[in-house]
């Protein structure tokens, strides 16, 4: 049994095929990178897995259970948490309250706000944001908000974590920090799917990489295989370089 299995997934918007017959698997404990040029269907794939979009056809199986087309609030309860490409913080909440939503609802829901607050502080500490616990989310910097989204997703106790361009907009130093953090999260037993636009950021991080172009999988393999794959070089740099 695969941890996550995507089979013959299709999704079109009007006449545009955003995802076409996509197949892939993720095994428990992996960091899998999902890359591809703009508009290749990375975020759409993520939205399909988390129920933010309903596929036209195909199935998504998570830990042996068919989760295709579940309402989007159910994915998190099943143990699939995500972050957003453009941060979606609860702006008028404090950082702590942001994280508490994940803890209180999430995979192990609780009505005990006192305990949830304590555990949420631990999540904030994990991403190095504990000193901002009482700050309002709208007063945080972009980097801090990205960390906050991560803390919030972690507080939901996911089994699978989907990161949508977590590193976009960060400077090289910050991106390096983020990569270390992602590795630590994996080492704590959470499987990770990373969507990135920047190839370089993902090579050092992923155990395995899946490359999309126009909604189809064009390559899959170890990072060193991917960088030498002619199709991949072609879609990124044009035919002349392949």
């Amino acid at each position: 049994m695969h941890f996550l299995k995507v089979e013959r997934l299709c999704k079109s918007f009007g006449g545009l095929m955003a995802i076409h017959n996509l197949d892939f698997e993720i095994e428990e404990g992996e960091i899998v990178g999902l890359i591809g040029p703009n508009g290749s269907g990375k975020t759409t794939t993520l939205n399909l897995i988390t129920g933010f979009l309903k596929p036209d056809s195909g199935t998504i199986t998570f830990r042996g259970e068919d989760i295709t087309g579940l309402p989007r609030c159910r994915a998190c309860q099943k143990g699939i948490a995500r972050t957003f490409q453009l941060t979606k913080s609860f702006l008028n909440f404090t950082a702590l309250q942001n994280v508490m939503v994940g803890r209180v609802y999430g995979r192990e829901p609780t009505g005990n706000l006192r305990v949830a607050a304590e555990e949420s502080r631990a999540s904030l500490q994990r991403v190095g944001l504990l000193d901002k616990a009482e700050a309002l989310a709208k007063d945080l910097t972009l980097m801090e908000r990205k960390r906050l989204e991560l803390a919030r997703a972690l507080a939901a106790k996911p089994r699978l974590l989907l990161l949508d361009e977590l590193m976009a907009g960060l400077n090289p130093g910050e991106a390096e920090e983020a990569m270390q953090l992602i590795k630590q999260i994996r080492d704590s037993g959470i499987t990770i799917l990373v969507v990135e636009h920047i190839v370089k950021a993902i090579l050092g991080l992923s155990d395995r990489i899946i490359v999309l172009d126009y909604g189809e999988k064009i390559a899959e393999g170890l990072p060193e295989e991917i960088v030498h794959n002619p199709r991949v070089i072609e879609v990124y740099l044009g035919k002349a370089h392949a």
Partner: protein
Amino acid sequence: MGRKQVIFIALLIAILVLLPVVVKKDNIINLALLVLLYICLASSWNILGGYTGQTNLGHAAFFGLGALSTRFLWMSGWSLLPSVLAGGLLAVAFALLIGIPAFRLRGVYFAIGTLALAQILYITVGNVFSDISSLRPQDLATYQLVPRYYFFLVLALLITGTTYLLVNSKLGLGMMAVREEEEAAESLGVSALKHKLLALSISAFFAGLSGGAFAYYHVGYYPRFPFSPEWTFDSMMMVYIGGAGTIIGPIIGALFFVVVRELLALKLVELHLIVFGILFILVVLFLPGGFVEAWKKMQAAFARRSKERGVKVSFQTTDD
């Protein structure tokens, strides 16, 4: 809640309880009753509009249904409390009936949809029940204002207390998360529809009870009157002027609204409409948090200035 706040609230309740004992003038008690009525309506609107972020422009429908059914049941021989409770439950039933389709609409479309439904009800009730509804002669003979005042006081305390408990609970956190960022809330396991329906039901229940209290209070009115859209818009304005999404905001808003309206009505009959209209626009544009935010900003400014002078002053916010 801090100690100062508990003392403040206890004092406020004591004043409200003792008011009819000390002040014997009916017109003053009546004015206080109106403030309480508007606290009930504004606070109930606030649960969905302020805390859950869904602008419901059909609030009068719940108030009207509560009034209509309470008046009917009570005058046909039911005792008062079951009649009022039935009014609240009828409002909830209607809320669930319209809520499921209405919440397929978002933002301004939800606002328009709820307004349209309430207007349909307003016109229909006006056509079906066109005769004035008056209290029975035996009720009129024994009519007293003070029990009506206490009825509204208990209701206002019930609504405010419930709101306080709600917003400090898991469900309140989920409701506010839906208001702040619906997609993020859902990605963390919050069912937006469930929380919106819950907030709408609680909001409708309290508006229905308020309508029931209105039916108990008012001597004679046309049955469509409590369905009139001004109940919705007045409540909404009070919430925004006072401070949406706060406990004390609707209370301040209601007090301000009734007092200013009475003062203006003495000289210029309908001028308050223009005054509140302009004030509402100003608040929405320049002070989205209403009086509560203005107060907090003032405190912050004072605190800064005291700090600069090297004086240590501790302020306690009056908000939840």
